[in-house]
């Protein structure tokens, strides 16, 4: 326990010094300040599941815009496409792994959070960070913060909501384990309890079948659904209100895995040098204005 806390402290120091270094012009100074910590995070001294390899778990299948974007890349995380796909390879490079040292394994939602040893170093599939979950697993620092959006059809009575109250009578759908579901239940609070599906694809099927008036998802997924998956659907708006805490995605680690601090360190570098923002820009942002739905 003490060991972990010290590593966390060191990681904090590293992050701080990196942040300072980023402010200054002199890059060489950063290398000297962080050399100690960098050593403990050197590839050869890391305790990886498969030594010398970065074993990354993700969903089965993976969905754009997060991973595997492009006709030939669907469900191919190794393509390094999509926000999370690209992020994994950037992180790996930052930590000192070459591209071919990165391997992907697939996990269901349940097996990733079940107690017991894991055969991967971290799991990335838009896990929202919450305090309750944090008691069971460890999360990295957030790598993305999202807003919730409402997807529906243009002829729906809920196509132009101006505030959350307008959605009182709507039958909404959301995927299980998402912050979207919590958002519907805790913030929108429609008269009918939201229908809950395994995956976003099932929510879309229910919308096509006319079983729900609309679905609530994170904004990047909403872009993808309206552009590719559900013909004729639109983003009715993004919600101004946030759930209790902002919806932040984090990498998921087995509880107590000391690797967290090294990954956080790499993540901080990517944030500070603008890589993270560039990835966001490349994979998750789209042109055009989206109306806001007030609280």
């Amino acid at each position, binding site marked *: 326990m003490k060991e972990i806390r010290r590593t966390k402290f060191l990681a904090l120091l590293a992050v701080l010094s990196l942040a300072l270094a980023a402010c200054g012009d002199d890059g060489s100074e950063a290398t000297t300040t962080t050399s100690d910590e960098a050593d403990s995070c050197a590839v050869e001294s890391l305790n990886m599941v498969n030594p010398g390899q970065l074993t990354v778990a993700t969903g089965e299948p993976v969905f754009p815009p997060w991973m595997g974007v492009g006709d030939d890349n669907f469900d191919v995380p190794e393509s390094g496409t999509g926000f999370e796909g690209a992020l994994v390879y950037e992180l790996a490079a930052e930590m000192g792994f070459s591209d071919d040292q990165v391997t992907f394994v697939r996990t269901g*939602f*349940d097996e990733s*959070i*079940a*107690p*017991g040893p894991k055969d991967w170093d971290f799991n990335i599939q838009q896990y929202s960070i*919450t305090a*309750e*979950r944090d*008691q*069971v*697993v460890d999360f990295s620092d957030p790598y993305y913060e999202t807003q919730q959006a409402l997807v529906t059809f243009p002829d729906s009575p809920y196509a132009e909501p101006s505030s959350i109250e307008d959605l009182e009578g709507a039958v909404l*759908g959301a995927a*299980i*384990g998402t912050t979207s*579901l*919590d958002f519907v239940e805790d913030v929108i609070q429609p008269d009918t*309890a939201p*229908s*809950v*599906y*395994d995956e976003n694809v*099932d*929510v879309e*099927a*229910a919308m*096509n*079948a*006319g*079983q*729900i008036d609309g679905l609530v998802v994170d904004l990047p997924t909403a872009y993808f659904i309206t552009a590719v998956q559900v013909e004729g659907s639109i983003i009715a708006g993004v919600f101004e209100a946030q759930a209790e805490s902002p919806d932040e995605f984090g990498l998921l680690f087995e509880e107590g895995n000391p690797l967290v601090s090294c990954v956080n360190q790499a993540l901080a570098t990517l944030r500070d040098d603008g890589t993270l923002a560039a990835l966001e820009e490349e994979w998750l942002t789209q042109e055009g204005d989206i109306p806001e739905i007030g609280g």
Partner: protein
Amino acid sequence: MTGPPDDIRGPSLWTSIRRPRRHREEGARAAVIAAISTVAVLGLILWWVLSSEAWPEVQRQFFNPSHFMAAWPAVLGGFWLNIQMFAVAEVLILIAALILAMIRALRGPAFFPLRALVIGFIDLVRGIPIILLILLLGFGVPALQLPGVPNSPLFWGVAALVISYSAYTAEVYRAGIESVHESQRMAGRSLGLTQVQSLRYVTVPQAIRNVIPALLNGFVSLQKDVALVFVLGVREAVREAQIYNARTFNYTAYVAAAVLFLVASVPVARFADWYTERVRRRRQGVGGV
């Protein structure tokens, strides 16, 4: 040798302990041995599980009282929906399956197309995994947007269960109908009953009595399979437990759901055993060989 020897008694849990008076002493000794052996076996298993280093973590994740209490209201509320779905589905299944089985039992070339249709239906439905049937009907049919056709996932989920279980249950009935001796049907016919009448008044009543244990078995199975409707977004007990699990990463809600399913299905299983035993004893008592 008076009275039946012990070893032809049924496997029922309770009756094997209740022995005739003349065996009472042996019975008492057997009960003691059974008790000691049960305690020893359970104790061994318990010790083995608890000796695991990861047990405290598993206990916190799966058997956590505070999570149990927190998840209970939602899971219980969902379970009420399970019971309702089960009740409606079971009644429809028993009726539909009987009709299917009777059609299949009709003789004569005139009924061939009907028989062929039923056989085709049963083959088709039994060949499709039930979860696919639920998904196909639940998302597929409403997407057609036919006027007058309901689009409720609850409706189509239960419909899929009824369709699937009717096919299986029809086969159970058929086995029962075939178990009734040919002479019964002939006797009915010779009394001037039509084919359908002899089926209805002579064969089927005896057939049903023969297959009640098998029907009860399907009963227990359906009690749990109604949970599959959750794939359509219906919030029954398992889905509520999943929601809790996904939110907190704690599995105790699943245990709460399992407890509810057990409470509902164990009595049915015990009743099936009891009933089978009763029928068997009555037959032996009356008929003799």
